[in-house]
């Protein structure tokens, strides 16, 4: 995987993680990102994944994974037991997003969150003019088969951080496979944030 084409969001996250760090990937899927991180950054990785089939793929990749819910799987970990906790494309799929975020911020010294932006202009147009549930490259599902249970916009997330005293250490916005800075809540289809509970470290 790592020698082939790396997805842009994975590249962005790869750029955020330091060498040799410990990483907990919540909702790690088939372990694509985690194995890139282990290969490129020599991280000590651990994943949590709900799908049994995905677990088999992870183990095949030599990853250490826990088969279970991310809503319940974090309580045993002590405060700050990982350098990074990653929630890429998974925060919008858990029932108790707020609880999971809090737990992630407790367990990880830094938390990286990547999600499809519900403020993306195409989403707005589809809702406003079409009166339809939006389908976009980062929100590719129909209403009846989507795994997403929450919709978050970049502005929502920024406001959440501000209100909760969560520091945003870094943010990268993606539009159609390139990084963008222009009015991200309108033009980015994906947002990736690195946040932390403690005040910004030096």
């Amino acid at each position, binding site marked *: 995987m790592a020698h082939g084409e790396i997805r842009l969001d994975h590249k962005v996250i790869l750029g955020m993680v330091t060498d040799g760090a410990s990483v907990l990937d919540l909702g790690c899927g088939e372990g694509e990102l985690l194995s890139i991180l282990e290969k490129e950054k020599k991280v000590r990785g651990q994943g949590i994944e709900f799908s*049994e089939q995905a*677990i*088999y793929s992870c*183990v095949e990749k*030599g990853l*250490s994974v*826990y*088969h*279970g819910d991310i809503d319940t799987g974090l309580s045993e970990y002590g405060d700050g037991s990982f350098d990074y906790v990653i929630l890429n494309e998974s925060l919008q799929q858990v029932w108790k997003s707020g609880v999971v975020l809090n737990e992630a911020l407790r367990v990880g010294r830094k938390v990286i969150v990547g999600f499809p932006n519900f403020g993306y202009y195409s989403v707005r147009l589809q809702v406003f003019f079409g009166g339809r549930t939006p389908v976009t490259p980062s929100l590719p599902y129909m209403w009846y088969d989507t795994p997403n249970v929450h919709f978050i916009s970049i502005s929502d997330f920024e406001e959440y951080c501000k209100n909760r005293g969560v520091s945003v250490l870094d943010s990268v916005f993606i539009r159609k496979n390139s990084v963008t800075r222009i009015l991200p809540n309108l033009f980015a289809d994906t947002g990736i944030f690195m946040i932390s509970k403690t005040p910004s470290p030096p």
Partner: protein
Amino acid sequence: MDVVKIMRNRIDKSDHLHKRTSKGTQHEDPKKDRGLGIVETRYFTFHELVTLGGRKLSPVTLAYETYGSLNSEKSNAILVLHAFSGDAHATGFHEGAEKPGWWDILIGPGKAFDTDKYFVICSNVIGGCKGSTGPSSINPETGKSYGLKFPMITIDDMVNAQRHLIDHLGIDKLLAVAGGSMGGLQALQWMASYPERVRSAIPIAATVRHTPQQIAFNEVGRQAIMADPNWKSGDYYDGPPPSAGLAVARMVGHITYMSERSLEEKTTARRDPASTFKSTAVLEVEQYLSYQGNKFVERFDANSYLFISKAMDHFDLSGELTHALKRSGMKALVIAFKTDWLYPPEHSKEIVRACKMAGVNATYCEIDSPHGHDSFLLESEQQGHLIRHFLEKVAKE
């Protein structure tokens, strides 16, 4: 009773009067040429074992088998641990036998525990009756079988005895310890007792502590044995064994090893409202259970049943596992089965929790298998996939 007799004759006997096959139990072409072929049990005797309870057992013999070859660095050894009624014969065929060892689906050339790569060891637990020192062995002090004079043993004692064998084989550090059910308990005990001597552990369908429910089922089995007039306070080796009691104990155990669905699949209940109550089995499930019970008495010793089940019931690592694993650098693969209600997935998650708290790198998978607790003996594909790749990873590090 005829059904039982016929089925009994079919199993593990050289004098087959009624050779019959029955659906579901027949092994397809065992591929003897591809597998390990004929394997033999060997014996290792050491001077003395002091049990956790402070009793001395001397001498101690362990029946064991090995498959594959130990590499020059002695770094490819895997100790496989058997369940309650298992033995040292984990794979391959004994001379003249029709059935292979108990974990043949996973151990062999090209299998999950690949004997082309690894040196796999399996020994019969102490307290057992398959060649290792147990209550049916001769007590050198009396010249008679130990019976109830055999010391109370624990899972801890079983593992200590195995450690003597590992020392004897010149292995300093095991690549892995692995087993299901009581084998899983031993794997956990190895993790706790000798964290510096194992690189990884694979506890399957196990638990950190025997719960009152699990103890209760074992107690019913023990009471059935002890209520058999032939038991004679364990001093029955000169006469008929307490077979009826032991068969009932096995029946209870067997029910707990299966899921509702697997029991359903093994048997189809033919209910005949016109029948009168008989003491013989009428429904297929009754026949199936009495077949299992009667088959068991031919190969197992009732006192071993008492001692080993007690050892399991005393198992409790809940307080010490995390502490023992801290800074061990060990890796763990914990496997549970969705339909296992004897050692349900919740119990395996507790093992993972202990690993997490100790900072041990653990992988956990709950396999959606329909076979209940017995899945660890039957599920080759998913279980094999996990074990194969996990071992490859550990071996590389």
